[in-house]
């Protein structure tokens, strides 16, 4: 199935107030076309809540709940169990950002995964707290300039590498973990459809390029996502019950430098720092996915 085969009707409607070039609406809109109307959506505090759910102008045509920031997976558990008790079939889907997943939400997420709650948890990962003004998160890559890891005179951006959240979820041995990218729509659709058909805990992790936070031209979001995959900075794969499957290996590997050069957040990187980032990618691939094709 391809993107043009998805239903016309959108359960996530236009008229929201996301920044130009934001990948999140494309992620949510296409996923919602697949999940369908018998879905209950939870969003924690994030950009998505603000740009699609500001009362009384809502972009949602499905039931929609917000409680707090750190509890997406707990709220999804409550939704799923209430409907299990009712004996009615609904899909409980959460759309959390990277801050709500990697950092403040990881405890509730780990708990719900361990209990194998029958829910779909989507992390749209724009690699920082964009909603509050581009502060670093556990998802922010090494070297990135954020408002709390500024490229200063002494310290040049974030000193730590991006946490491998999908690996953490894979270690929970849940029925399904998938990493996705909006640049690879066929793969995106297939994984979303697969997640819908499986029951138990499903974790979908999508890289969500953010022109505002990463500082690139808003027309280049898809290109950024593609380069992230081609450079190995972002990896597409699936894992069923903890076993990695279907690693996407780009035909031609591009250097990390080519991915980061179009992004203002990496503008200050020294050759040593670029080398450090490249080594991190190579290490990660060697350890988890095999060598990247040169």
């Amino acid at each position: 199935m391809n993107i043009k085969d998805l239903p016309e009707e959108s359960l996530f409607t236009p008229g929201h107030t996301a920044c130009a070039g934001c990948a999140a609406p494309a992620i949510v809109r296409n996923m919602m076309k697949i999940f369908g109307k018998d879905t209950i959506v939870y969003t924690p505090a994030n950009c998505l809540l603000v740009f699609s759910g500001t009362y009384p102008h809502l972009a949602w045509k499905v039931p929609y709940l917000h409680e707090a920031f750190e509890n997406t997976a707990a709220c999804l558990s409550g939704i799923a169990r209430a409907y299990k008790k009712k004996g009615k079939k609904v899909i409980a889907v959460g759309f959390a950002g990277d801050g709500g997943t990697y950092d403040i939400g990881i405890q509730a997420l780990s708990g719900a995964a361990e209990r194998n709650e029958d829910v779909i948890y989507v992390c749209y990962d724009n690699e920082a707290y964009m909603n509050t003004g581009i502060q670093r998160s556990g998802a922010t890559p090494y070297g990135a300039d954020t408002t709390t890891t500024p490229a200063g005179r002494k310290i040049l951006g974030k000193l730590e590498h991006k946490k491998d959240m999908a690996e953490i979820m894979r270690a929970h041995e849940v029925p399904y973990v998938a990493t996705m990218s909006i640049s690879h729509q066929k793969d995106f659709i297939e994984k979303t459809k697969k997640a819908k058909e499986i029951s138990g805990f499903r974790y979908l992790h999508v890289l969500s390029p953010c022109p505002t936070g990463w500082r690139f031209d808003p027309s280049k979001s898809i290109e950024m996502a593609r380069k992230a995959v081609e450079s190995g900075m972002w990896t597409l794969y699936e894992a069923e019950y903890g076993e990695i499957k279907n690693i996407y290996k780009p035909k031609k590997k591009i250097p990390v430098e080519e991915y980061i050069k179009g992004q203002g957040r990496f503008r200050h990187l020294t050759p040593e720092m670029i080398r450090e980032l490249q080594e991190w990618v190579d290490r990660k691939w060697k350890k988890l996915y095999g060598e990247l094709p040169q």
Partner: protein
Amino acid sequence: MIQKLERKKMVVTGDYASAYGALLCDVDVVAAYPITPQTLIVEEFSNFVNDGITDAELIMVESEHSAMSACIAAQACGARTFTATSSQGLALMHEMLFIASALRLPIVMPVVNRTLAAPIGIWCEHNDSMPERDAGWLQMSCEDNQEVLDMTIMAYKIGERKDVLLPVMPCLDAFILSHTVEPVDAPSSDEVAEFLPKYKPYAELDPEKPMAIGTFTPPEYIQELRYQQHVAMERAKKAIKEVTEEFYKKFGRNYNGLVEEYKCSDADYILVTNGTVTGTAREVVDELRNKGKKVGLLKLRFYRPFPADELRKVAENAEAIGIYDRAISYGVGGPLFIEAKNALYGYTLPVYNFLAGLGGRDVTKKDVEKMFEIMMEKRKGEIYWLNTRGVKI
């Protein structure tokens, strides 16, 4: 659905009475996390589920914060929910308490009152639930295990009323009730089902009629919501009176509104209590009455809504009033004392504050006698720390 349960006399702990109350109310979803001394509640409820007595969904979450989050979500989907906690667990839930009440979800959560650290302790103090006074929950306090069971049932009935729609926190003293065995009359499941019909949510998350709950809201709308919560809490006073009356007619136990007056009508000196100290105070009142002292007792069954009218009524002809507190707002006084001073504004009688039993220290008859002695002597000070090393009274 629950199995048919007959009317019976049980000899059980306060925690068991609490869990059994929730069972009788046929709750749909329970999300909980264990903490001493609430543990028996979740253990007993787990037994009910695993023995097939109820088909409730049990979510043993990884924290109290998640327990309340899951209850809110389930209740927003139209389920009747239940959880329970104590002390640190309640403090961890703090953020979510405000969300439960503002979303107008009548969740019921017993709080087994335990001292809030530091230093860490597990015994009775009211400094866990009382700081949550502004969270928009009704707060009840129980004197014995019968009251724990009955209050749990009434909590759903009061909270779910369309004129209230607020969550309810029945409070019970750590160990003194939670782990102490007492005889309790349990109604049958049929009787409870007649008293408490199936939960009909005012609004729910349902794909058939999509709506958003709890979403991002600008200043144009929030103030009215706050006003409505305030009005609902005020309305709860009438609801409590009506529900306790209805309960009396159905089950024969009379809880008579927000307070219980004991020998107050002609009393000059009235002690105001909540929780288990009431039993001790009742005995002291009897003994002092035998000695010809005109003393009385006002037991507060509710902290929120606060029974200000009931307090003013007994103060009308009294010489002095003493407020017992098992928690302290540092530099000001006990939480009940603060409320009482507010309610008695314009009254000229002395209002005393007695602090005792903090951290779980026993409050003895001797302590209560001392409270009456201070009132009867019309002492000058306001706040008295009883049985406290380094404090002379």
